[in-house]
């Protein structure tokens, strides 16, 4: 009884009274900590020199482009004359494309809110920290779940006619399903995709959808947010 209490109250600070095993050295091994992160260099000058070179290259590049490319300037703002289409800055055109399909509350509030929330919580989930290859544990059960999610997502997107979202979603889903059946020995691509964790698939899906939506919103949308081809200018 007293023995049990001793353990529960913690360890004494007197090493002679309460010896603790710090390390267990077996034969032909050593207790030395191995650090394979490579050698250290002095920040001054090694890092600062590289930063200075980066600053110089950047300055030259920005100055050169600014000399030959002109910032856009249209007519004076006129609240009575609405351009068609009225477009947001390029980094919000993905959102504007979503607004075309979904009610404003969903596309303008819920979805961006969820994206920001999802980004913030990434490092606080162990599944993202461990980063186990996607088909490592319980592959059959996970495969069923992922296919169910892909199908449900596609049906939902199809119900809203949101095919510029559905297409990249299906493309990533197809690669995911293919990677389940592919053999790692078969090709470098199979080995690569099979070794990726779930977090990689989710982020890649997000990046791919965001990229497609932004490109579509920038180049393929014209009057009334109708589909246009960038090489066929409208209204000019």
């Amino acid at each position: 009884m007293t023995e049990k209490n001793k353990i529960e109250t913690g360890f004494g600070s007197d090493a002679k009274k309460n010896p603790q095993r710090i390390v267990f050295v077996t034969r032909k091994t050593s207790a030395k900590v191995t650090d394979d992160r490579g050698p250290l260099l002095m920040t001054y000058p090694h890092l600062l020199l590289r930063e200075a070179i980066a600053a110089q290259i950047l300055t030259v590049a920005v100055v050169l482009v600014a000399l030959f490319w002109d910032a856009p300037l249209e007519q004076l703002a006129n609240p009575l004359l609405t351009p068609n289409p009225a477009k947001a800055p390029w980094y919000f055109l993905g959102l504007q494309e979503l607004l075309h399909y979904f009610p404003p509350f969903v596309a303008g509030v819920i979805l961006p809110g969820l994206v920001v929330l999802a980004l913030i919580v990434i490092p606080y989930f162990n599944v993202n920290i461990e980063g186990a290859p996607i088909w490592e544990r319980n592959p059959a059960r996970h495969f069923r779940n992922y296919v169910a999610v892909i199908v449900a997502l596609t049906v939902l997107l199809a119900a809203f006619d949101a095919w510029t979202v559905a297409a990249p979603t299906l493309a990533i889903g197809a690669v995911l399903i293919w990677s389940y059946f592919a053999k790692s020995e078969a090709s470098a691509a199979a080995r690569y995709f099979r070794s990726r964790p779930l977090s990689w698939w989710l982020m890649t899906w997000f990046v791919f959808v965001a990229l497609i939506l932004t490109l579509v919103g920038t180049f393929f949308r014209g009057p009334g947010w109708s589909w246009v081809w960038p090489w066929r200018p409208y209204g000019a």
Partner: protein
Amino acid sequence: MATTLHSLLDQLRETRAWKSVFRRGPALTNRTRSQAVFGNLFLHWMPVKVREKSLAVRASYYLGSISFLLFLALTITGILLMFYYHPAVPQAYRDMKDLRFVVSNGVFLRNAHRLAAQLMVLLVFLHMFHVFYRGGYKPPHEFNWVVGVILLLVTLFLSYTGYLLPWDQLAFWAITVGTNIMSAMPVIGGKLRFTLLGGNLVGENALLRFYVMHVVVLPLIAFLFIGIHFWRVQKDGGLTVRSKDDGKE
């Protein structure tokens, strides 16, 4: 020539005047090189030593550094543009015309600011994706990832508030479209939009508010969080360096 210049610099660094400014002589030993970093207000948040691997271009593509350098370039060009700008309707638009036709190098100034702004948004996105794919959000870097997400949002708001300032059709309608989305927010949406615009429409109050946000409030917030972000890089043990160059960590 090179050696003479070098020795001249070293002689300069030995003078009392130099030492009084930089608190050290030439940085010839690792001790003085350390002092060069932690004895300098502008560098003291940096680690004294860095992993050789983290200096490789592939380790970061210098995306974070370039984002910060763009922020500096935007501050400089932005202050110069402020000398020529009035946040008033329709004077703001006339100032754009003045920059084009009257001010020396006005076109260049506005081009550089606009270009650097677009590049910064792009680079901050690329920086985030690159850090994610390298696993840079993993412990002990969790909170710095969150600070990074905040900096992404601040960058977007900075760019968006700047978008209205030229007061042309592009600016007016982009902000009108964007702030209309805000009204979709339940309960507070309409009030939030009214607060941001200083009215129900994008007008001169909106221009003034966006201007103040763009040149004072948001840059200060960005500056604060950039400071935290850099400082935490050092405190959390530098860039994530992989044990092996490929495969998972």
